[in-house]
């Protein structure tokens, strides 16, 4: 058995991506695709909001990620297709069933000249898992993800040499490369000297951009990191400008006062694309929007003694069949969304496409009747809806979905709430038995596990806990270190989750950007952040 596992580990080792060693610095090109570029240009990028923090430990939500990932990098990078590629680590591999080894990139320095090495990684692991704060004399921060709680099976880490780190676990952890690798690395000496407040206010990373000025709620200015180890941006300066209003962002782009805008409303995109001075590009995102339905047993929420009304799989499946997702994608998102029946985002590692839920109101009625919900005893749904949080298209979609559910006999009460109220209801477990909510979830990790763990432990977004057989399968995906075998398990789990239908899958977001035609080689990532490495500005 052990020999068999060793051979699998060896196979995995051989198939894992290995990158070339650090590349020597080269003279930046003066042309791109035959077009003369301006290496000293400043690119102004308009975003809807400013970040609230720059210390990655505090949180990496969608807006914040955009800022933080310009300055900081993790061990594992991501390419334009969303695939994991070497970042600050050249390679990563399991060296035994319970040990992962990261080979670090040599010659990398932080913006202040501090070298990146194994000591940096150990310090960061201490911060991730809240260890040795006394030893470091470091203030703890309230982190969005509690590594020590979420990944309690990570037991210790060690330095093998200056550029090799091993992480040990108490059980096989096939996604360790992802949850540790995607977390940005901060400098050790700088953080110890300036404290976490210093790190938050004046961040110093290894990334392609150095932050040089931050006017809160207004703008952040970056300068190219000329000592960057990888493909650097081909322009000198970048400013992230906060412009909260979508129409104002578009006006600023059309006036030529900004070079790129994010979050273009779907129905504005075609008009912008017709302007010869502009380009419109888009990419699927890891934002999956769903209806979460109360399928919790009565001992898992503040129930008043009643099980969730949606515990019956047939009911949840019926609601999936009642939604015309193609119409939503076309009419509300103008094609800038995907109907995805898999519980995993289409751009995640391990995603397996699943058969779409057909739009079949007749079958939906039949399933509801089989579950005991007929015209004389209709199914009721109190649907919480966080208005003005996910954008105008989401706000238009939710009432449309409610109407589709009404068409199959569900009595829907739509209750707009502010996002904080929704979070509180979900976190305290105070949904009524016939309750549900419309919400979107995203993540910073690449692996499918990021999505599939949604139904493993009772959490804010888990209102349909895995039944024992799915829990076993899920556990198997978390213990299988052999990559091909694990991919098969992941695909199997996605198929079974699709059939079990824990949520009503609505759409996966496609993010739309508009940019000046002078901006060359900008490719949107299927990630929360933008990447300007290799991007140039026409002279």
């Amino acid at each position: 058995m052990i020999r068999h596992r060793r051979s699998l580990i060896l196979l995995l080792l051989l198939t894992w991506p290995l990158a070339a060693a650090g590349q020597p610095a080269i003279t930046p090109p003066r042309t791109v695709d035959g077009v003369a570029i301006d290496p000293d240009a400043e690119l102004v990028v308009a975003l809807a909001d400013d970040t609230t923090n720059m210390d990655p430990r505090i949180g990496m939500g969608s807006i914040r990620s955009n800022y933080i990932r310009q300055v900081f990098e993790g061990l594992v990078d991501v390419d334009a297709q969303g695939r994991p590629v070497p970042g600050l680590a050249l390679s990563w591999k399991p060296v035994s069933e319970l040990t992962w080894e990261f080979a670090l990139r040599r010659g990398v320095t932080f913006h202040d000249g501090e070298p990146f090495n194994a000591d940096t990684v150990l310090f960061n692991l201490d911060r991730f898992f809240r260890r040795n704060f006394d030893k470091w004399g470091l203030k703890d921060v309230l982190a969005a993800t509690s590594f020590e709680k979420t990944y309690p099976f990570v037991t210790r880490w060690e330095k093998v040499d200056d550029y090799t780190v091993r992480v040990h676990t108490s059980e096989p952890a096939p996604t360790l490369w992802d949850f540790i690798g995607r977390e940005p690395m901060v400098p050790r000496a700088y953080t110890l000297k300036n404290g976490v407040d210093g790190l938050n206010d004046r961040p110093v990373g290894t990334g392609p951009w150095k932050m040089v000025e931050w006017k809160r709620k207004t703008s952040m200015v970056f300068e190219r990191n000329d000592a960057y180890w990888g493909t650097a941006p081909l322009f000198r300066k970048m400013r992230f400008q906060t412009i909260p209003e979508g129409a104002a962002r578009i006006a600023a782009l059309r006036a030529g006062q900004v070079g790129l805008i994010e979050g273009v409303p779907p129905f504005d995109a075609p008009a912008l694309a017709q302007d010869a001075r502009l380009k419109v590009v888009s990419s699927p995102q890891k934002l999956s929007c769903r209806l979460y339905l109360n399928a919790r047993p009565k001992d898992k929420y503040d129930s008043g003694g009643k099980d969730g009304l949606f515990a019956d799989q047939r009911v949840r499946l019926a609601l999936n069949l009642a939604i015309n997702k193609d119409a939503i994608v076309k009419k509300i998102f103008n094609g800038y969304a995907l109907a995805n029946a898999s519980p995993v985002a289409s751009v995640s590692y391990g995603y397996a496409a699943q058969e779409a839920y057909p739009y079949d109101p007749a079958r939906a009625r039949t399933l509801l009747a089989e579950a005991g919900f007929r015209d004389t005893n209709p199914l009721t749904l109190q649907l919480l809806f966080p208005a003005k949080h996910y954008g105008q298209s989401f706000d238009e979609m939710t009432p449309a979905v409610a109407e589709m559910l009404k068409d199959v006999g569900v009595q829907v009460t739509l209750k707009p709430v502010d996002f904080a109220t929704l979070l509180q209801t979900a976190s305290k477990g105070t949904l009524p038995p016939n309750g549900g909510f419309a919400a979107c979830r995203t993540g910073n990790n690449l692996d499918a596990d990021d999505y599939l763990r949604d139904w493993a432990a009772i959490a804010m977004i888990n209102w349909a806990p895995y039944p024992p057989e799915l829990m076993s399968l899920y556990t198997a995906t978390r213990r299988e270190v052999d990559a091909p075998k694990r991919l098969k398990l992941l695909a199997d789990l996605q198929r079974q989750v699709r059939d079990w239908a824990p949520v009503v899958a609505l759409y996966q977001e496609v993010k739309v950007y508009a940019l000046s035609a002078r901006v060359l080689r900008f490719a949107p990532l299927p990630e929360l952040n933008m990447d300007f490495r290799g991007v140039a500005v026409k002279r």
Partner: protein
Amino acid sequence: MRAFLLRRALHAVFVLWGVVSAVFFLVRLTGDPTPFLVDQTATQQEIAEARTRLGLDRALHVQYLDFLRSVPRGDFGTSIREKRPAMQMVLEHLWPATVELAAAALLLSTILAIPLGVASATHKNGAVDHASRLASLFLQSMPSFWLGLMLILLFAVELGGLLPAFGSGSLRHLILPAVTLAAAPLAQNVRLIRSGMLEVLQQDYVRTARAKGLAERFVIYRHALRNAAIPVITVTGLSLGFMLSGAVIIETVFSWPGMGRLIVQAVPGRDFPVIQAGVFVFALIFVGLNLIVDLLYTVVDPRVRLT
């Protein structure tokens, strides 16, 4: 006068205590900020631990007493979202951005209103009066976000970037947001001055002044306007309060880094310390402005005595 000022200062302390206490309890009625700070897959135990770390698990009266002890020192705590001193954040947005914008809009709305309102009253039912009333109606009825966007489209896009579409820091940046913010108060002031002037121009002392052979301009601006301006002072005081505190839509459209948007963003984010510090500063501004308005009455109308 001294007694008046002392009494008003005492009133101010009670008003501010009432405001900070009300806001302290009201924001807590809106719920718990902790779910914002943790991952969406966080368990109830993790959320409970986060609440403890923020001190939100303590009894409400303990939190309130702590808060009251800190307020006189200007310490409103640390922003839950940004981890920075809340009062520092509010003051950074108040000065210069909010004050600059409010002062410019106040200047525009009063300086332009005086000649327009006077001309409208002295040319009652004439072309100038009709144009002025129509323009006032138009400016008052237009939603400020729409006016702002139209000005951006005109001056930043169609006229080839004559004025910047967003941002702050120079006079050019200030023009469009100040004009947008000044539009509604300007219209209001024009109408107030017009109606005040129409009333005053009928008074005996105006007739006497004219009978004395004083120049018409002197009669209007020295004798009539001074009396017609009293309601304008009251409204301007309130308008300035609105401009300082409630210009959030203009700040959003023009990406102006003012205080209004800071507070409005803090409310859905349940950033209690920032809301408390912001409301305290607003209350202080309103109390101060009311006092200034009362003092101004004595300057404009010598019959008014403050006791």
